[in-house]
């Protein structure tokens, strides 16, 4: 009896050894989940406008089961027949500090197939005012699939990159007020302080809306402000008519300020307006009155001298 038991054990070991040797390695049932998250490039290449835009990015979640060997494939087929869903869990783990992001759904159920299964989920993106224009932002999405029986689990992090748009915003200040009274021989100069409150280097174009008849009005053509709180001063100069005689000219001068991104001057913002009042009052002399005065003085001196000689 003991011999019989011994021989049975040896035969079992032999059979197991034979099975192990005869069956190829790749025939061992290895099943692993594989997830890929992709998105349309068009959606991310176009800059996201801070504050006003909510960008809805359509994420395509691709799922397939990688198998090794015929036995594994057989096992997968049997799983698929069982109407089993793979639960792909998505989670936003990190994003740029100046943006807000959420997913339409945190779980994407995908039906198991032997091929590639696709599902879609939306990623919503919104940027704050201080997002740097054309600065690169990111959203990190963690995708995971828990293990299901023989099918192994999966875990991977995807990084979605996008570009922030330009938000033009400038502040205008006239430190010397908006009114000036001058004589007809003088000129009124208004310093205009411009601050950049936008999110990129900004060029500001100045344009005089309407020049009053007979007046000469000049303004700085353009100035380029540095990023974040850059401040520069432009000058508006108004010269009134100088015709001989008494003047009482009161005019309103309007200047249009249009901000544009310094690197792309076609990217314009909403214009701002500055209106000033200049009053020219007083007598305008011909200009050679000083020469006349000096001449008269000389004549008087000469007459006195001549008289003294006599």
């Amino acid at each position, binding site marked *: 009896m003991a011999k019989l038991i011994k021989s049975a054990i040896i035969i079992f070991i032999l059979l197991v050894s034979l099975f192990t040797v005869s069956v190829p390695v790749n025939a061992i049932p290895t099943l692993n989940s594989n997830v890929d998250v992709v998105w349309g490039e068009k959606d991310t290449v176009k800059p996201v406008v801070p*504050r*006003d835009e*909510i960008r*809805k990015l359509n994420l395509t979640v691709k799922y397939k089961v990688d198998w090794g060997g015929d036995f594994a494939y057989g096992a997968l087929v049997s799983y698929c027949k069982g109407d089993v*869903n793979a*639960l792909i869990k998505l989670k936003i783990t990190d994003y740029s500090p100046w943006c*807000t*992001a*959420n*997913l*339409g*759904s*945190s*779980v994407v*159920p995908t039906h198991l197939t032997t091929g590639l299964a696709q599902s879609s989920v*939306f990623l*919503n993106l*919104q940027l*704050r*005012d201080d997002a740097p224009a054309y600065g690169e932002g990111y959203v990190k999405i963690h995708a995971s699939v828990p293990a299901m029986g023989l099918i192994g689990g999966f875990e991977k992090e995807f990084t979605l990159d996008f570009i922030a748009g330009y938000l033009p*915003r*400038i*502040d*205008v*200040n*006239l430190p010397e*007020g*908006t*009114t*000036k*009274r001058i004589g007809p021989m003088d000129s009124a100069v208004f310093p205009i302080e411009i*601050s950049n*409150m936008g999110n990129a280097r900004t060029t500001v174009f100045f344009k005089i809306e309407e020049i009053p008849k007979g007046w000469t009005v000049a303004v700085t053509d353009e100035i380029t402000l540095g990023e974040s709180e850059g401040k520069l001063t432009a000058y508006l100069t108004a010269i009134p008519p100088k015709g001989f005689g*008494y003047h*009482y000219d*009161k005019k*309103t001068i309007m200047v249009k300020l249009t901000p544009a991104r310094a690197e792309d001057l076609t990217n314009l913002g*909403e*214009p*701002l*307006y*500055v*209106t*000033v*009042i200049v*009053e020219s*009052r*007083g*007598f305008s002399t011909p200009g050679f009155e000083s020469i006349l005065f000096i001449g008269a003085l000389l004549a008087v001196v000469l007459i006195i001298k001549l008289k003294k000689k006599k």
Partner: protein
Amino acid sequence: MAAKAKPDVVEIGYGENITVDVGLMNLKTGEFETQGLPFYMDARFLNFEVLEYPGGNSDGSWLVSFNPPSIQAKSGEDIPLKSQVTISLTAPKDPKNTVQSGILKIRLKDIQAMGNLWWPTNEWKSSKLLWFISAAFLLKFGKYSGTVDNTMEQIIEILVKVKPYHNVRFEALPLIQFNPGQIASIPISVQNLGNYNDTYGFRIVGDYGRSTISDPVSISLKPGEKKDTFIGVAVSPNVLDTGTIHTIKVEAYSIDQPNITIAQRTVYLETKGLYISELGVAGILLFGIIAIVFVAFFLHRRRKILIKSRKKPEKPWEVSGKKQYLEKLKKKDRKKYNTVLNEMKDEYKSSILSYNSYRRTMLKEARKKSLNRFTGIFKRYDHNEKVKTKKLEKKKQQISDISKAEEIKNKELKIESPLKEEQIESVIDKSAEMEKQRREQAIIKIQKAQGKQRRKFGKFNY
């Protein structure tokens, strides 16, 4: 188990509210789960609560309510495992605490209470022994019998975009006084009550006649920030303004929505005072100079005429000789003294009357003469000459009348006065004085003429 929100992105503005459905998701359909109480449970509750508000909720701007706040699964009845969330947003008390876009996080707690899992429920149709073996040995779910599981929870995230809220507050301004013709900038303090960095433009509404008012300068403000902008005012130059109140209406708008007025403020101005322009001052000066010249000329001419005529009579009692005589008389005979003094006074009165009448006549003649000269420039007719001669004759006549009247007066004085000799002397003195004056004037004229001639000849004497 998974949860979802529908919609997962919402937009809300200040003073608005929106509703969103949140609940458990059916993994097969992707829709909200509709389910009854599973046979192995005694009870199941779904509780909803807000975990995180967009940008925080320190001053209670967010108000989120669930309807129903808790769902209880019912046995034998399928109910949707979802709740309706109402999100309300109000403007924060402090405008510096802005409410901007963010994530609203809702926690869904799934509380499950298991029944007696050792013994099969009524729904179990198979062998009771098999249930027991499974509960005890195979699946070992028996150990959950009578337990309550409150650890299961789902986090639902809703992206809430807060609409830009454009609002400003104008600081109140007191009544501002202006003089006519004054030009100045009035500062108006503006505070951003909105929730984002905003740029505000301003427009002046209404017609202000001859006064010029410029639109305040556009300004950009951070939430809660306060800054000054300026209204340019150039008041019309009314010559005299006793006090007029002007109202200037200022409207504010965001440059993102230029057609929508978000705030309005009325600024009150009072114009009061007198306005004289440089041109006016020059005119007044010119007029003054002309007037002074005219008056000086008039006075000079008048003086000249009066000098030509005769000297104003002196008071007889102040003439040195008579004064001494009166003093003596005063000491000797008081009564006589009074009589003589009265007579002197009467005499003086009469001579003054005579002098005034003479002066008037002379001035009248001079005026007529100058008028005739003036009109003569335009009208040079022959009959004017006749008129002149007639006037001259008249003048002579008047002068002779005056002299006659004087003679008569002198005679009367001689008859009436007890001091005949003295009166005669005074009359002689007067005529002598007049003669003396005439001579002096003639001498002066001759001297002037001589001086002129000397100067003329002197030019050629090198």
